[in-house]
């Protein structure tokens, strides 16, 4: 069965430089810099990436940052809490627009 998402494609991510090497290389240089230990630890960054991966619903990123979080010593509780942070922000983002809905409804109502 063919599918839009093939797990084997994750290992080919670096190949995107083939068709635009300058931009691709700059992206990967930036990417590597972002994930280096800085004000945040590598483990904290992996957990943020894991949460964002769920928010943007990227299966490749979920695969990569589940592995990366485990490698950096995160446990299941920390990883699931990160996913809940993403869920809370996504849910909250939908819900907070309810204020707009309420404003508009009130504007239109007698």
């Amino acid at each position, binding site marked *: 069965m063919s599918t839009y998402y093939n797990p084997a494609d994750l290992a080919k991510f670096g190949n995107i430089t083939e068709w635009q090497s300058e931009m691709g290389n700059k992206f990967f240089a930036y990417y590597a810099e972002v994930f280096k230990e800085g004000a945040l630890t*590598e483990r904290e960054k992996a957990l943020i990436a894991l949460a964002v991966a769920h928010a943007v619903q990227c299966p490749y990123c979920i695969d990569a940052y589940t592995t990366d979080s485990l490698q950096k*010593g995160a*446990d299941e509780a920390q990883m699931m809490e990160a996913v809940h942070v993403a869920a809370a922000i996504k849910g909250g983002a939908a819900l907070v627009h309810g204020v707009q809905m309420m404003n508009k409804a009130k504007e239109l109502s007698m």
Partner: protein
Amino acid sequence: MKSLQARQAPLADTAYQLTVLTQAEAVGAQLPAFAHRLRESGLLPLQPTKLGVMQINVGKMCNQVCKHCHVDAGPDRTEIMTRETMQLCLQALAQTDIPVVDLTGGAPEMNPDFRWLVEQISALGRQTIVRCNLTIIVANPKYHDLPEFFARHQVRVVSSLPHFSAGRTDAQRGDGVFGRSIRALQLLNAAGYGVEGSGLTLDLVYNPAGAFMPGSQVGLEREFKQRLGREHGIVFNNLLTITNLPVSRFLEYLLESGNYESYMQKLVAAYNPVAAANVMCRSTLSIGWDGQLYDCDFNQMLELPVASSVRHIRDFHEATLAGRAIVVNQHCYGCTAGAGSSCGGATT
């Protein structure tokens, strides 16, 4: 859980393990030969450097049955080193200036001559490392005084603790192991181990609890110190990260979980020539419970003896052994991936 041997599992046969490792097509993987990668790095034949560590595996008997154990150790394993073989090890040691003797198992403390051996090594003025699984200290009253015994002989204690959380530790080492390990660590701390200024070294070993490689040793050490200190009041010196090698029960786990091919591919992709140059087998001699000689504990468990005319500790001859080529196979990718892996942790 029982050992592979007790279950009469196919992987209990080391020849079958080597078949799995070397016939990559058997699991659909295309993996280059490790020797080929070494040759590309200018390291074949892999030669020993100055001997720094005599590692003695005093037996396969253990009170735990960990899922990842490359020894296939457990309570059902009865192979242990006799005092006579220990004496041969001590005679060999006395002929050399090897500074460190690394005692491993199984649970080395379960060998009835363990304490005698530590005393003899101490009398020769060499440092002893004991690979303590922690729970042995609280397993039986006869082991409760081990922290004081270790301290008396200035033994460096190196203890496995896969994670600072109970879930990930127990998943690898068995239910309740985390709680008992914490209790044992508290007893070691009470004896001065890991306490600044005591001179008593307590190092922890991190093995990933699954089919992934260890992350940064520095980062994990900081996290372990923070969490174990805050949640359990435990202090220790260093965290040593070790990559699980596809040998014995970890190999079984990889095959049964469908992770073998992807794990091997990860190791191959992470091959690091600098780590390859620093592998521990170059400066270590590994002695089996029956006195047979190996390049490392992993070769020992795969029954790959040293390629030398000297194959038993009774015939020990340092210069002859120094001329050997180290035996390598596909499992060696584990020690050469990423930051490198050894009994002393990362190697780069």
